[in-house]
């Protein structure tokens, strides 16, 4: 029983990390069709933000809560800069955005290496996050529980923004029918930019959260970007809930496979499961039906 709960929690915890990394992608890839490989580097930027903030504010608890909004801002601004300079002119060839943003990712990684040095840096977790919480059946690390809560908060927050605010309605309008949205007077240009801001900002938040789990290095983002994209692909485009389910499902699967085999074989098995899953549902868990041929 305890082993089972432990495994389940390990899976959910992994899922919540994946979800934080993938949530912004679900917006920018799922909804705008841009494949932003630099998303991983926005995560990395968020992590370094936490590192810099902790250099200024020594109290680990305060610096964490300052870092989260600041990480959002840093990631978001980097995203807007990328959108405005390069991606704007490339919406009609989404595949090429992948390579362009990969180039941007290389540059950002090297920048981080030149600014912060190649060795990893550490961000101290606040005292109340370094212990464990007793859930009755088992003990779980507080930091992981915090990230789980943070990811749920991010999903709920994003859901509220999309559902209730005028901006959210505009985003959903543009997603469902870009041309129509444009003809009814929605500025797709500024909507795209805001979508990118939010999506990239979420990457920054993910980066801050990751500092609680391990050290921060220039290649931090690369470790997560592939899995994050897999989550979006498996979840299906156009809807956030697909990504949520996919993230937790992949997390639990990975943990379960790891338990019965090894971490590396588990990775391969998860890949196989996704390919098989796409045989059954090529559009992912959820998809927005359209009439277009593509």
């Amino acid at each position, binding site marked *: 029983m305890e082993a089972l709960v432990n495994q389940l929690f390990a899976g959910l915890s992994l899922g919540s990390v994946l979800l934080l990394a993938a949530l912004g992608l679900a917006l920018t*890839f799922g909804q705008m*069709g841009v*494949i932003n490989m630099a998303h991983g580097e926005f995560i990395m930027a968020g992590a370094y933000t936490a590192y810099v903030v902790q250099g200024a504010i020594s109290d680990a608890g305060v610096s964490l809560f300052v870092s989260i909004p600041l990480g959002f801002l840093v990631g978001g601004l980097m995203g807007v800069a990328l959108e405005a300079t*390069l991606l704007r*002119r*490339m919406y009609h*060839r*989404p*595949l*090429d955005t*992948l*390579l*362009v943003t*990969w*180039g*941007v*990712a*290389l*540059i950002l*990684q*090297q920048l981080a*290496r*030149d600014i912060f040095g190649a060795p990893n840096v550490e961000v101290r977790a606040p005292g109340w996050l370094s212990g464990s919480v007793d859930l009755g059946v088992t003990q779980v690390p507080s930091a992981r529980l915090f990230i789980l809560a943070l990811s749920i908060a991010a999903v709920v927050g994003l859901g509220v923004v999309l559902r209730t605010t005028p901006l959210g309605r505009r985003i959903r309008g543009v997603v469902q029918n870009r041309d129509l949205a444009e003809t009814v007077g929605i500025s797709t240009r500024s909507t795209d930019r805001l979508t990118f801001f939010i999506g990239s900002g979420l990457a920054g938040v993910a980066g801050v959260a990751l500092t609680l789990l391990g050290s921060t290095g220039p290649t931090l983002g*690369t470790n997560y970007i*592939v*899995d994050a*994209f*897999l989550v979006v*692909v498996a979840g299906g485009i156009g809807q956030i809930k697909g990504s949520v389910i996919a993230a937790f499902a992949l997390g639990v699967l990975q943990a379960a496979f790891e338990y019965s085999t*090894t*971490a*590396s*074989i588990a*990775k*391969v098995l*998860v*890949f196989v499961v*996704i*390919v098989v899953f*796409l*045989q059954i549902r*090529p559009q992912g868990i959820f998809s927005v039906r359209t009439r277009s*041929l*593509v």
Partner: protein
Amino acid sequence: MSAIPARLKGNTGVLLGFVVGALALLVLAPAVLSDFRLSLLGRFVCYAIVAVGIGLAWGRGGMLTLGQGVFFGLGAYVMAMHMKLDDAGPGGVPDFMQLYGSGEVPGWWEPFRSPVVTLVSVIAIPALVALVLGTAIFRRRVRGAYFAILSQALAAAFAILLIGQQATIGGTNGLNGFRSFFGFNLFDPVNKRMLFYLAAVTLLVVLLIVWQLYRSRYGELLVAVRDQEERVRFLGYDPATVKTVAYVLAAAMAGVAGALFVPIVGIISPANVGVVPSIAFLIGVAIGGRTTLFGPALGAIAVAWAQTTFSESFPSFWTYFQGALFVFVVAFLPGGLASVGGLLRRRKAIEPAPVVAKEGAPA
């Protein structure tokens, strides 16, 4: 103007390209380059072979394959396993296994003691993996970004799998320290030169194969599938088959390149096959012109040459430069350097088009 002279003219250009390429690789390079440089060029030629395959799959077929490192790696590891077993002698155990493993050769290594099995597997294993994956993915109409991401995930999974298997496949260290290649001593400079010739001839052969494909009806069909997959379906073709053929060929080419890479470079490790090297294969293709015949190979050689020249003395500069290349070429010059001349010509050609648009009503 009738089409025949145009076609002839096109062919002379290509044939000339082959002659120049053959002279440069087989006569000029061995004459002027030191053994060390020649071996380096041999490595670049291996990358070029991968690039030709990517040109076929991505440039002509529209499949952005970010996982060619997997097929490269499969070919390379098969060859490396054979060479390791060969070095160990009949019934012998490769050195690293004695160090990290149980001291016994795993059963799945045994077939690669045979040179014939190895040579067949170098092509067949990557091709088979691509066939299974391609059939599964393309038949369910998974394409575009989805395909790109899946192929990238495959590369990630493959590298992680290799890293995890220290005892049986060398883990992070990979396989290295080879002494002979099918009985030829690898420390003998003459044999190293022969390896270069082998790689160069292979590149030329691969280019010839791809040239024939591009000229053929299949090549036209592949472009049609790239641009309008659904339309092709309504003409009675199954686009999945068309795409799978190109994907499998590209995989086989990568496999052959990997198999040549191992004796030339002397090592294969997960660092050569993962996400990063897989995507790095693309930049040369993009620069040279993804839809052209010679562009991908030339681009790959040029990029690899630049990387070797700059990355050692200015590692930081090289990474910035490589990143900037991706951004600049793909965003602003999607046709690659090969398109620069064409862009100027097309600008002139577009003008008169509307004038002739009226003629030619149904008879």
